[in-house]
């Protein structure tokens, strides 16, 4: 039932599903572009509470960057047939992803403790909402990672086009949400300086 017609086609250079994922990422990016432009427009209107982003968000950025490195390492190991590294690095990625979510939560608590609550001022509300929506997209990535881990441990290590495609889709999405967070952090930092 779920066999897609797309797999019948081998002529095009980029796989339609991978292309579709790219289009979906562009669409997600538009949502965050809307949030950040709303931030700028609202900031220009005044009544805007200035505050410094808690340091934990910066530490957290290292965590998510590291997770991108591990998932990429796992992908290379997968292609080269190094089963051990493939599996271990994938699990590391999942742990780092979950750690990112936990640390984001710490970040929100740090915000609350400096007096910036969700409803205090739109400047803070934006940080909560934007990072919250980003975290929701990380959750999607974590779901994909869990599926990838199940595949890594349940199946014998074989590099087939279908499995390679599936892993690449997970990889692209994870890099995307990572890049998205870096964009958001740079954005917040520049706007708040």
């Amino acid at each position, binding site marked *: 039932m779920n066999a897609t017609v797309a797999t*019948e086609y081998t002529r095009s250079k980029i796989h*339609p599903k991978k292309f579709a994922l790219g289009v979906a990422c562009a669409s997600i990016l538009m*949502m965050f572009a809307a949030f950040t432009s709303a931030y700028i427009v609202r900031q220009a209107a005044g009544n805007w509470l200035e505050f410094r982003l808690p340091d934990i968000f910066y530490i957290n950025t290292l965590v998510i960057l590291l997770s991108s490195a591990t998932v990429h390492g796992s992908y290379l190991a997968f292609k080269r047939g190094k089963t051990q590294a493939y599996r271990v690095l994938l699990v590391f990625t999942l742990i780092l992803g979950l750690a990112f979510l936990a640390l984001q939560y710490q970040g929100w608590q740090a915000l609350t403790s400096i007096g910036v609550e969700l409803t205090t001022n739109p400047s803070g509300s934006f940080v909560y909402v934007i990072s919250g929506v980003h975290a929701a997209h990380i959750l999607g990535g974590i779901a994909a990672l869990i599926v990838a881990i199940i595949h890594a441990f349940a199946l014998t290590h074989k590099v087939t086009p279908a499995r390679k495609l599936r892993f690449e889709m997970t990889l692209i999405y994870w890099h995307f949400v990572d890049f998205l967070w870096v964009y958001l952090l740079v954005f917040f930092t520049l706007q708040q300086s």
Partner: protein
Amino acid sequence: MANVADKPLVHEDDLLIEEYGYDDHFHDHHHGDKFQSNFVTTYFFSQDHKMIAKQFLITGMFWAIIGGLMSLVFRLQLGFPEENMAWLKPVLGKWITVNDAGIGSLAPEFYYALVTMHGTILVFFVLTAGLSGTFSNLLIPLQIGARDMASPFMNMLSYWFFFLAGVVMFFSLFLNTGPFAGGWTAYPPLSALPQASSGSGAGMTLWIVSLVFFVVSVLLGGINYITTVLNMRTKGMSMWRMPLTIWAFFITAIIGLLSFPVLVSAFLLVTFDRSLGTSFFLSEIFIGGQALDHVGGSPILYQHLFWFLGHPEVYIIILPAMGIVSEVLSVHSRKPIFGYKAMVYSILAIAFLSFIVWAHHMFMSGVNPFISNFFVIFTLIIAVPSAVKVFNWIATLYGGNIRFNSASLFGIGFVSMFISGGLTGIFLGNSAIDIQLHDTYFVVAHFHIVMGVAAFFGMYAGIYNWFPKMYGRFMNETLGKLHFWGTIVGAYAVFWPMHYLGMAGVPRRYYRFDSFAAFGSFDLMNQFITIAAIITFGFQLLFVVNFFYSIWKGKKMTDRNPWKASTLEWTTPIEGIHGNWPGKIPTVQRWAYDYGKDGKDFIPQIQPVGADESKDEH
């Protein structure tokens, strides 16, 4: 796999496809033909793009009838505010209040709910899903020579998310507090404060849930359309050989994908304001004499976000209609489309400009008048690609051997409507004139003609033209022509007078005008509009009857290419099989518009270019 239903057992198209086609071994796999095995997967959870197209169309028709009936109720209120509406009580229940004398009248809050629902339903459910959903699904794989969409599963999800959105919206109509009543644009504070009006509570919650489902549907569909067009064209189908329908659907999908996520952002922020006490869009507000906690929000920010979708949305509605009309006019005037590349470039230009004109909906909302200047200029520039398209349609018709059937009549009607509505757009695009005209019936007349009626005309042209492709039968021509003449006369009768109302300053969204002495002179005109609207709606019922009658009883299609069109969809077997072509998929040898070339009536796209053929000049 010879096709037994076709009269000439060996069809010329089949021979061409067999000789030059591309063998993708589709039918070697067992799911190729056994894909749809039971009743449920054929008619409900179908993954076949042709069935999904029909699902979109019939669901869209259902909503068009509901939305149309709503407009009749509020038109009755506007045309005959004194009349007894007690006869509507069995349908509308408590929203008709009957006084001691037995005179029933429409509850004012429900009037707003009707206006809001009419707008939401028509804009999103009918003219986005019903139009672009139907024809993108039907035509993209067929016209580019693909077996199906890139992901048929996602395509199925796209329909069912739309269906879910419909269920939620339909449910909201029956709430005790009524559906959302703050206008289809859902501006805060009416949308952000549950206590603002009776529809702002549960009604608004369901409205927002429904529209988020709807956006999911649009995105799943759009991702599929873009991917399919870019990755799954058959051999020889270069971008410059695509029919204009495909160009239009492709660009529409891109616009949708870039603008709908912005709407989701706005909805999310509204939801936070509604439920979690943030103040994105709410500033210092007193309600019922009580000061609210919200401070520092900006309602204009919502308008920016909303119209960043809202304006591209009108092109999401009109571009597919434009594509359909280009194809229909070319086929039925037996001439190549005039200025094919100019048509494509104007679609691209309109798409680009659609993203930088949104604030022309907000000239009077308090935005900086100097910034308005930029939006005025870009808005007026849209007239250029639009005029190019109109010129090309007329030039296509000029000197053509036109078949005046239902499809081409609606195509010509589209051009007429688009000109009439487009010209008033030039008035409204000027921020200075907008001071007088904003929020009047002039605006109502403008957008109804240019994107409401015109888009409907495009849709009808498409339905009459591709009905044989969908159901293997023709719609009744006599009823079709009657439908056309009734609709074009009726639509002008409804919307033309509204321009005069608007120029005199009659505001839209008002429940009744009898307390304004200045508008008393328009009572007869309002009655005329209401009667015209009822008659026009009657003609649409004629279409619905024709549609369903023809599915089962229409004249059977005996020739697989009844319109003598050159595009690929007419090379498939009449009964429409899964995978579209029984054997190989066709290879494309030429562009889509070889009509009347070298003395030949038409040359199909699968026909190789002959040695003695004159060179293409397009």
